[in-house]
C-alpha cells in the first residue's frame, strides 16, 4: 500500500488551506425537480400498492415513490447500483428514509410499476433480495438498528444478524399491509440504545447479564478510576487496592476498583469509561424483547416500550427463538388488535395480563420494574385487573 496524499493536508502546517465548518451540502441541490417545484404545495397522498406511494401536488403534478428495503450496511458497489437505477428511472435522484429504506421517485404509475418489478428482480448471489419493494402503510418496515459485532465495542449481540433473521421471518409483512396499523421494529445491541428502541412497537435489545470482570493488573494504567466509579448509575463500584500476581509472576499491590456484583444491572457504562471492565460473555449475553412503544402522536401519545421477554440467548447465526417469538408477537397482534391500533395501544386495551396470555409469554420477576422511584408507578394500584 503506497500512501497517496490527497494534497489537502500538510501535517506540519495543518491549518494551511484548511476548510472547516462548511456544514453539509444544501439539500436543495439534491431535490428532484418535481419535488423542488412542488415543495410545500402537496395536497394529499395515496399508497397505490405496497411499496408505491403517490403524492399529489396543488399543481396537479403527481410523484410516485417506490420504496425498497436495504440492510443499511451497504457496499459502495450496491450504492453504485442504486445510482444506476436512479439514473435510469429517476433522472439521477434518489433518497433514503429515516428508517434506511431507499426511495426512488418517478412521475407516473407506469414507471413506478416497472421500477418495482426491476427492483424486485435484483438478487444477491446468496439468494436474498437486493431491493425488495415494500415497507409502506400498515405493515412492517425496515428495522432501525445499530452496529453490533460489526463495529462496536459494547454490544451484547449482533445487530445486522438479528435484523436479518427477523426480517427474513417477517418478510411477507414487509411487502403486505395486512396489519392493524404500522408496526415498527427497532434493534439496539446494548443499553446505550442507539436508536428508538425505547419507543418502538417491538424492540430487540442486546443485554449483558454478567457484571464486569476486573482487569486489576491494568486498570490503574488504562483507566481513570474516579471516572469508572462515577460512571456506575447504581453506585456498585468503589475504588480499592488489591494484591495480584502479574502475568510475569510478580506479586504487587495495585490500585483498582471493587464491584458489588449484586448491585450491578449490567449497563456497561463503566466499560465505556474503562476498557479494563469488560462484560461480554457468550452465555451471559443475549437479547431482551421490549414492546408497546410508539413515537407518533396519532390517536395516543408517544410511549415507551416495555420489557416483555427478559432473555433470549444468542443462538447464532439465526437466533431461532428470537425469530419465533417475533412471529408469534406479530401474528397475535394481527389477529387481535383493532384497525388503527398500534401494538402498545392494543396491549393496554386488553391489559398486559391478557397480552401475556395471548402471546403465550411467561411472566417473571424480571419484568417488574424495580429501578428507582418511578418503578412504583408501574405496579398495580387498582382492583381493575383481569384474572
Amino acid at each position: 500500500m503506497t500512501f497517496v496524499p490527497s494534497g489537502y493536508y500538510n501535517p506540519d502546517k495543518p491549518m494551511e488551506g484548511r476548510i472547516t465548518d462548511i456544514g453539509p451540502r444544501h439539500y436543495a441541490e439534491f431535490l428532484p425537480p418535481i419535488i423542488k417545484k412542488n415543495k410545500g404545495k402537496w395536497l394529499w397522498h395515496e399508497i397505490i400498492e405496497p411499496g408505491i406511494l403517490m403524492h399529489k401536488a396543488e399543481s396537479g403534478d403527481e410523484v410516485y415513490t417506490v420504496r425498497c428495503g436495504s440492510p443499511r450496511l451497504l457496499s459502495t458497489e450496491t450504492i453504485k447500483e442504486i445510482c444506476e437505477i436512479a439514473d435510469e428511472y429517476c433522472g439521477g435522484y434518489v433518497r433514503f428514509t429515516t428508517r434506511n429504506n431507499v426511495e426512488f421517485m418517478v412521475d407516473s404509475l407506469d414507471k413506478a410499476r416497472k421500477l418495482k418489478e426491476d427492483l424486485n428482480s435484483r438478487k444477491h448471489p446468496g439468494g436474498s433480495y437486493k431491493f425488495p419493494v415494500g415497507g409502506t402503510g400498515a405493515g412492517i418496515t425496515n428495522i432501525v438498528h445499530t452496529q453490533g459485532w460489526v463495529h462496536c465495542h459494547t454490544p451484547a449481540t449482533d445487530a445486522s444478524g438479528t435484523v436479518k433473521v427477523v426480517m427474513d421471518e417477517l418478510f411477507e409483512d414487509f411487502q403486505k399491509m395486512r396489519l392493524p396499523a404500522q408496526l415498527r421494529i427497532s434493534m439496539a445491541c446494548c443499553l446505550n440504545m442507539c436508536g428508538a428502541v425505547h419507543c418502538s412497537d417491538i424492540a430487540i435489545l442486546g443485554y449483558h447479564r454478567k457484571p464486569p470482570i476486573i482487569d486489576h493488573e491494568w486498570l490503574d494504567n488504562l483507566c481513570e478510576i474516579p471516572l469508572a466509579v462515577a460512571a456506575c448509575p447504581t453506585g456498585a463500584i468503589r475504588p480499592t487496592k488489591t494484591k495480584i500476581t502479574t502475568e510475569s509472576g510478580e506479586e504487587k499491590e495495585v490500585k483498582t476498583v471493587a464491584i458489588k456484583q449484586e448491585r450491578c444491572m449490567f449497563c456497561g457504562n463503566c466499560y465505556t469509561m474503562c476498557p479494563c471492565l469488560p462484560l461480554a460473555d457468550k452465555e451471559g449475553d443475549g437479547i431482551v424483547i421490549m414492546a408497546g412503544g410508539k413515537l407518533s402522536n396519532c390517536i395516543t401519545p408517544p410511549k415507551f416500550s416495555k420489557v416483555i421477554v427478559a432473555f433470549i440467548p444468542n443462538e447464532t447465526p439465526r437466533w431461532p427463538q428470537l425469530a419465533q417469538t417475533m412471529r408469534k408477537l406479530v401474528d397475535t397482534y394481527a389477529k387481535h388488535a383493532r384497525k388503527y391500533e398500534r401494538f402498545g395501544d392494543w396491549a393496554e386495551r386488553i391489559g398486559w395480563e391478557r397480552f401475556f396470555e395471548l402471546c403465550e409469554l411467561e411472566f417473571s420477576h424480571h419484568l417488574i420494574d424495580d429501578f428507582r422511584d418511578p418503578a412504583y408507578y408501574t405496579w398495580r394500584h387498582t382492583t381493575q385487573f383481569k384474572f
Partner: protein
Amino acid sequence: MPKHETPLLDQLESGPWPSFVSEIKRQSEFRHKNAEAMEKAGKPYQIPVDVCDDLLGVLEMSYNDGTTHWKHGGIVGVFGYGGGVIGRYCDQPEKFPGVAHFHTIRVNQPAGKYYTTEYLRKLCDLWDFRGSGLTNMHGSTGDIVFLGTRTEQLEEIFGTLTHEFEQDLGGSGSNLRTPACCLGESRCEWACYDTQELCYQLTMEYQDELHRPAFPYKFKFKFDGCPMGCVASIARSDMSFIGTWRDDIKIDQEAVAAYIGGELKPNAGAHEDDTPFDIQKEVIDLCPSQCMSLEDGKLVINNKECVRCMHCIRVMPRALRIGDDRGLSIFCGAKAPILDGAQMGSLLVPFIKAEPPYDEIKEIIENIWDWWMEEGKNRERLGELMKRQGLQKLLEVTGIKPVPQHVQEPRHNPYIFWKEEEVPGGWQRDINEYRKLHPR
C-alpha cells in the same frame, strides 16, 4: 477461496431480506477484482484490499464466541475537530490485519436525505479508495456513515470532502450532533414548517458547537414536520422541533362524502383490508379529544378542543388538511435510557413561528445551552439536568411563562418549593418574637 471460512455467516445469505453478509462479500469481491485497476490509475487502495475479508473473519469469530472483538476507540480524529470520527481497533489484529484499525467517519447528510447520483458516486469513489467501501446509509443519528478506515486516512478523507465535495463531517463526542429532519415539505402534505431548511440553518449556525466539544455531553436536534414524528424527534433529541398549527383543520365536505360513500380509500390505502369504511367507528370514535361529530352528513370538528393528533387527517387525507397558522412546538430532554432512564421530550414551547432567520428559536437554544453548560455535570444530558433542577428552571432560563400546556397533569405531591421573595415577610424570623406567642 475466501480468506476466512465463514460457515455461520454464510447462513445469513439465504432468506429474502437483503443480506449484509452478501453486501460485505460483494465489496470484497469487487476490491479484489478492482485492485489492479486502482493501482494502475495511480489510486492504489489506501487500506488493505482484504479489509472486507478480515471483517467477515472477525465477525465469524464473534458468531462463534458470542462476543465482540472491537476495542475502545481512543482519540482519533481530524485536526481542530473534536468529533466526526469514531476510533475503532480490533482485539485480534494479528489474525485480521485488514481491520486492525477500523475507524468510522460520520459525514453530515443533506437534510431530508435526498441525493443526486453524481454526488453519491463521488462519495463511493472516495470511500473505495480510502476506506473499506462499506457504509451505513445512514447512521441512527442521520449521518452518512463510512465504516472502517485507518488513522492516516482521516485527514485525507476530510481534505477531499471539504475541498472537492464541499462537504463537512458530522458530530460525535460532547458536541452538537448532526441534526436530522423528516422530509417535510419536500414531499409531505402535512409538514407544518420547512424542516429541511430549519435543520440546515441551525446546522450551519452551530458549526462550531458541532465540531468542537464544549458541552457537558452530546446534544441532538431533530425536526419533525408534524406530530406524526417521522424522524422520531420526541424520543431521540435533546431538542425536538415538531410542526403544528393553531387554527382550524380544513374540511372538504365533498371529499368527506366520498370517503363515506366508499369512493375514496381510507388512510390513503395504507390498509389492505377492504372492509367498508365506517366514519363513526374509524374516525369519530377514535378521536382522542372526542371533538368530532357528523351533523347531517357533514363532518364537524370542534377545533378548540382538538389536540391535533392528526388521526382524522391521516384517515381522510383528501378531505381534511392541516390548518394555515403553522409553526412548531419545542420539546426538550429526550434521550435513551442510559443512565437515569429514558426520557421523551418535555414540552417547552407550545407554539412558535418557524420563519427564517429563526432568531427567536436560536435565542431559546442559546439560553438552554448557557444553562446546561453552566450547570450540567460531566456526561449529564439536558434531560437529566431538567430532572435534577426541575422543568421550572428550564422555563426560567428561557424566560417562558408556565402554562398548563407544560404539564400532562399538575403535581400530585404538594411539595411546593416557595421562594423567599414570594412569601410576605420573607423567611428571616426571630425566635424570640416567636417565643413571645409560643413559650417553650
